[in-house]
């Protein structure tokens, strides 16, 4: 019961965040200079043509009215029409989003699955070589810009060593339609195509590492700090005084109370992850939302901008909602306080 209250609050909060995001982006997109209709039609179009398009798009109406139109479309799940591709933004995004989704999801899972054990090792062997190694890794990965790491990996693993593919999701010689979930890793398994799965993994490797290194470093660092903090708590000493064995103390009594900060940081890192995904996608020619989004912004394709931003926003909010649920499962204090507050 208390968990439902806690969850209900988080959902309401998420909706509020999305609403705020839509208002801000909507305003910014329209306030920056440049006429979308003119850009869409090109320099040769006549003033009448431009004006006609402005009217069909409703660009000459007051801002709040335009926003109302946008919202009513959104309520029906319609993101409108892109000026550039002349297609429904829904279709454009459905085409490009799965690739981004797969990349970002793999990155975050990998960063977490590797970051947490690294943090545990660092805490377990504090001030010894595993700790020093993890701390160095966290710092180096934090200060290395994503684009730099992406290019470095591409050159090293791709061209110098020539062991991994550096562009796209699959080789051109391997045609495969991910038409079930849109995720190659899952669809290839459903279709029983081990060869596609293996290639998808190989293609994912470099972009995932480039995108996830910094996040993994952060997660490791936070896990380490959190565990060391917990290890000094009275309840750990009490467990020791009552003869609870070392291994159980480390993995049950310490890890669980220490687990919330790494989870939370993962949710926060996720925002910069989406942003960096655009960079990584451009460098690795990843057929995701990035190139679509970049073009939408430079061309002031209003509906496409809103579409990309809102889909990213929903993605962000859903991941954070999931993390909130996990945090609530892991730590009853948050669940109970969250329901009371």
């Amino acid at each position: 019961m208390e968990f439902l209250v806690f969850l209900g609050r988080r959902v309401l909060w998420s909706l509020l965040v999305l609403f705020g995001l839509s208002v801000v982006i909507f305003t910014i997109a329209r306030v920056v200079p440049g006429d979308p209709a003119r850009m869409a039609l090109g320099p040769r179009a006549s003033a009448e043509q431009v004006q006609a398009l402005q009217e069909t798009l409703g660009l000459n109406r007051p801002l709040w009215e335009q926003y109302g139109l946008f919202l009513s479309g959104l309520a029906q799940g319609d993101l409108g029409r892109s000026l550039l591709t002349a297609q429904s933004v829904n279709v454009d995004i459905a085409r490009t989003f799965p690739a981004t989704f797969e990349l970002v999801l793999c990155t975050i899972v990998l960063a977490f699955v590797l970051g947490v054990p690294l943090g545990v090792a660092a805490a377990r062997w504090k001030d010894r070589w595993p700790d020093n190694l993890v701390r160095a890794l966290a710092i180096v990965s934090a200060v290395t810009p994503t684009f730099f790491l992406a290019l470095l990996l591409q050159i090293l693993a791709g061209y110098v060593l020539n062991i991994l593919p550096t562009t796209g999701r699959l080789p051109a010689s391997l045609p495969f339609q991910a038409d079930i979930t849109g995720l190659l890793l899952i669809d290839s398994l459903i279709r029983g195509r081990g060869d596609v799965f293996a290639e998808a993994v190989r293609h994912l490797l470099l972009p995932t590492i480039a995108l996830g290194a910094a996040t993994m470093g952060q997660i490791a660092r936070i896990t380490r700090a959190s565990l060391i903090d917990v290890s000094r708590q009275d309840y750990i000493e009490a467990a020791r005084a009552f003869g609870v064995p070392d291994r159980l103390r480390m993995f049950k009594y310490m890890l669980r109370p220490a687990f919330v900060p790494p989870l939370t940081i993962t949710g926060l890192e996720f925002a910069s992850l989406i942003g960096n995904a655009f960079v990584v996608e451009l460098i690795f020619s990843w057929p995701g939302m990035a190139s679509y989004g970049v073009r939408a912004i430079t061309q002031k394709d209003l509906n496409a901008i809103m579409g990309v931003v809102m889909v990213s926003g929903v993605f962000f909010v859903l991941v954070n909602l999931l993390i909130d649920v996990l945090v609530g499962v892991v730590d009853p204090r948050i669940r109970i306080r969250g329901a009371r507050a």
Partner: protein
Amino acid sequence: MSVLLSVEGLSVSFTTYGRRSQVLHDVSLAVPEGAQIALVGESGSGKSVTMKTIMGILPVPPAKVEGGRILFAGRDLLTMPERDRLRLRGTAMSMVFQDPMSSLNPVFTIQDQLGTILKYADRRLGRDRDRRGRRVRILEVLAQVRMRDPERVARSFPIMLSGGMRQRILIAMALLSEPRLLIADEPGTALDVTTQAQILKLLKDLVTENGLALLMITHNLGVVRQTCGYTYVMNRGRIVEHGATQAIFEAPAEDYTRNLIAAVPRLTGRNG
């Protein structure tokens, strides 16, 4: 009465950042079977270090036992094999932790925490008790520490319970494996005066009911007066005075003890 716990000439030092400082100097004290003994001293005098050394939970390093013996039922804890020592820790000798807010793991239920402790205590003692048997024992000790609704308390997370209830759980934790010696380090000092008085009364009653020996550690002499017949006074790592509690109260030999007595808050003295 035979002596259950006897500390003889115990010296302990800490080395931090290469600097060694001696924290306990030649400490000796004795706890007879079934007796209630107090160890008092101002904050920082070395009471907790004494307790941790006895329990074998001193962090080594930085700590180091420089010398002395700790006899429990005639065997030296400091030289016995680690296996035997583990068998005693938390079972025959166990302790009541001081701070009810920080001594329970916040993310596990009471049932879970007490269950884990009991499970490993049983294992060390070679006792055969299944999950259900452990649950029965947990509800039993929770009732013993006067919990009105043991079932509900067992299901609760620490955050759902008041400070007084959590302190009683810390006592229940210590009683789980039927100890012969209970060491209580400043029990209840984190609580308000009334609740603290109730906790001390409960502790005293439980000790008498079960015929346990109690080593009560406190900086508050008022606590000692109602609970313990014999008192050791510790100052800067040394036992400076000891004797029947009544005698110490009436004619303290040391200025240090006089100051401790003078510092007793009036209220706690009344309702122990």
